[in-house]
Structures are given as structure tokens and as C-alpha cells.
């Protein structure tokens, strides 16, 4: 990354060094720059330049724990991806939350960290995320990373979305935001399909 900053700087320094070079004809350098064809040219654009040697990509720092003291949530988080239908994968046990591992983590420079858990699943007790809907504004959430780092957030909104209206592009955004998004289900349960009508989404912003 430092290379990227230095290269344009070197370019600028090189150009300023070039400017007073006298014309090859041997005449003395003009005291004011003149657009003669024999003067050394200056680059018209300031283009970023980086090296191309293979470099390891930034390693994610997976969240391992989510705590929401206001509603007594303290649970393990594991990395999850997508299942075959393209929906977010979730740990089968509602007492364990899943972090969307293809997106940012709380220590990424940009983008939302998405953590979700089942509100309930057959043969398990109702999960801790069932309490998310009761969260007041400013409630504090703490995420702990695999290396012990912590990230602190405060609740900004709690929203019910009918499932088909879940704004997935915005919630799973990777630029322009660094929110924490907690997702579970809620609303009415449809016995025939075995699914809840709504998603309950908590959005929290980083707090110092």
C-alpha cells in the first residue's frame, strides 16, 4: 500500500526535477518555462501505480461471540456461507449465531457485518435472538473476534420486514457503511410452509 502512495509522489518529484532541463541545442535554460517541443514532457494524469507481486489478501477476523446485555444475549458466533438455494446458511441450533463469512467482519475497513440466528428450530429451545425485537435504541452490543479483539456498537433501529422485502443489497453492503446487522425471524408463523412471515433486523452503528 505504501508503494501506491509513493509512486505518484515520486512522479511529481521527478517531474519537478525535469522541468528546468535546458533544451538539447545547448542554449541556456529559459528563465520562464516555454512550451518548446524539446523540453521534457510532464505527465498529463496522476495515475495510481502499484506493484504486481502476489500479496496475501487481508485475512478476515471472524467474530466468535455476540453480547447484548440489555436482553441478556451472550452467544457463540461461527462463520457461515450460503446454502445451495442461495440463502444465508445458519447454524441449526438457535443458540449459536452465524456470521456471513463472504462479507466484512467488524475490523474490515468498510461494509456491514451480518450475524444471524434462528429464532427457533424444531426440537431446540427458543433462541436468544427472540429477544432482539425488545431492544431499545442505544442498547449496547459487543462483538468479540477470534483473536480477542472487541468491537462495540449501539442499536440504531429494529425493523420487521416481510421476508420478500428484506433489503439484502443494503444489509449485506460492502462499502459506504460499517454497521452491525443482526437478523432473525419474527411476526406470524405460517404452519403450512414452516416459515415465519417476517425478518427482524437490528442495525447498530459502531460506538467508540
Amino acid at each position: 500500500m505504501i508503494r501506491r502512495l509513493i509512486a505518484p509522489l515520486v512522479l511529481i518529484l521527478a517531474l519537478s526535477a525535469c522541468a528546468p532541463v535546458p533544451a538539447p541545442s545547448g542554449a541556456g535554460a529559459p528563465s520562464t518555462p516555454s512550451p518548446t517541443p524539446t523540453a521534457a514532457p510532464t505527465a498529463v494524469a496522476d495515475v495510481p501505480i502499484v506493484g504486481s507481486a502476489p500479496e496475501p489478501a487481508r485475512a478476515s477476523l471472524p467474530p466468535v461471540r455476540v453480547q447484548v446485555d440489555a436482553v441478556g444475549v451472550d452467544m457463540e458466533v461461527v462463520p457461515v456461507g450460503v446454502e445451495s438455494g442461495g440463502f444465508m446458511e445458519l447454524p441449526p441450533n438457535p443458540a449459536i449465531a452465524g456470521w456471513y463469512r463472504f462479507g466484512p467482519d467488524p475490523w474490515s475497513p468498510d461494509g456491514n457485518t451480518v450475524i444471524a440466528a434462528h429464532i427457533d428450530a424444531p426440537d431446540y429451545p427458543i433462541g436468544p435472538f427472540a429477544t432482539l425485537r425488545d431492544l431499545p435504541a442505544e442498547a449496547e452490543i459487543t462483538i468479540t473476534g477470534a483473536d480477542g479483539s472487541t468491537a462495540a456498537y449501539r442499536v440504531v433501529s429494529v425493523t420487521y420486514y416481510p421476508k420478500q422485502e428484506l433489503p439484502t443489497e443494503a444489509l449485506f453492503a460492502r462499502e459506504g457503511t460499517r454497521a452491525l446487522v443482526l437478523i432473525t425471524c419474527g411476526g406470524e408463523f405460517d404452519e403450512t410452509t414452516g416459515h415465519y412471515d417476517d425478518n427482524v433486523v437490528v442495525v447498530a452503528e459502531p460506538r467508540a
Partner: protein
Amino acid sequence: MRKTIAAGVVAGFALAAGFVVPAQAISATSADLYVLHAIPDTPVDVYVNGALTLDDFQPGDLAGPLDLPAGDYEVALTATDAADDSAPVLGPVTITLEAGKSYTATANLDEAGAPALNLFTNDIATTNAGEGRLTVRHVAAAPAVDILAGGTAVVSSLVNPDQATLNLPVGTVSASVALAGTTDPVIGPADVAVQDGVLTIVYAWGSAEAGNLDLAVQTITVGHTAPGGVPSGTAGYAAERDAMTQAFWIVGFAFAMAAASVVVVVARRTQAAKIDR
């Protein structure tokens, strides 16, 4: 219809409004152009349409993106002490850029070892959730090669100046380059990350004869696909509990109302009794 239920909460937290095109300048009228210097040992100046654009450009360096209106551009490479592009060491070559596209121009050696300029179009389509894209480009003075991932050929008989693209599950690939039909690496192995929402381009460059074959890597952030949804409740226990709690309150309220009306009746009877006395 969505509803926000937390009391006293600021409505409408500024989530990223819809999908943000990653950091590219591509538009309906412009293209992105990157330039890779893949000729060993020869720093150059790069001129575009007669204007010096890259000064003292070093082998192995990658410049860009340049945001350019769609159209034809004349590209020439000169020695670094040249005053202009009247005596290029390579070119001038006319390249055509179409709007909405991303390109990488490479100054590289052809199979015979002579300097050449190639224009590649970068596949910047959105990746599927859980996948990344890998493009490999042969721009080395070397015969046909196989590209191996973890020792197994995933691209066969790639010749200079061709490319091949694979969409792969997110993860790390141990990539190497071997002469076609062989498995002994002539370049690598090197770890290459396949990332969700990223196009990773690996170039084989340099000269087999000069013994300076190498890998160059370029990454471009492209669109990613978010999961289609978050199905996070499959038993209905919570809804059931809510219904029971609600029923409990209704029953409790009815009892309270009944008790209240008993109290009222008793109070009135007592009052009436008092009045009667």
C-alpha cells in the same frame, strides 16, 4: 410494509442506499484502463494520444484505473529519457475502448521474445454468492502452458497472448504454471486468494530463456451477490408463545374486568345499604 418498532429510535439509519458500484469509473460513456508493464528490465514512458501518461514506468508495475471516454487511443512506449513519442520503442498501437468496460493493456514479450502490446477485457460481471473469479493471462516469452491449482491443471494449453477465466469457490488456491502437459512448475507455486466479489487476474510474464518468468497479480473489486434471504425460524415456537402470552393477557384482563365490576357492584350495594339505613 415494513415497520420499525423500537421506541425512540432514529428512523431510517443510512444503510448503503441499494447497491453501490465498486470503486470504478466505468459509466455509460467511459471505460477503465489499467496498464501492466510486463517487459523485464526495461523502464519506459507511456504516451496516450501523444501525451505522456506514465513517466518512468517500471517492469512489474500496474497503473490505473484511468477513466477514459470510449473511443480509440494511440499508445506508444518510449525510452524514459525521450522528449516525446516520436521514436517509440513499442507502438504506436491503436486500442479501442468501449463504454462500460474494464481493460488491462499489457506491454509484454510475445512467445518469441519480442516486445508487444496486448489489450485484455476484464470480466467484471457480478460474482455469485460464495464465489470469486480468477482470470489467467499468458504474456510470457514461453510456449503453451498449463495453469495448475493445487497441482492439478485447471487450464490447459494456454498460449501467449490468450486468457482463461474460472469462477471458483471462495478460498486460497496454490497456483503454479507448468509447460503444457507437464506438472513441474516453471512459475510458482504461489497462494492466490479467490474472494467473493473480486476478480483476481494472474499474469505469467517474463522470459523462459532469460530465466525471469514470474507471476503478476491484479485484483479488481466487482459486484457481489447478497444472499437471497435469511430464513431464520422453522418451528413456530416463538409465535406460539406470543399467542399464548396474548391469550393469557386477554383472559387476565377479562378476570380483572369481572373483578372490577364485582367491586363496583359491592360498593354500590354497600352505598345503597348505607343510604337505606
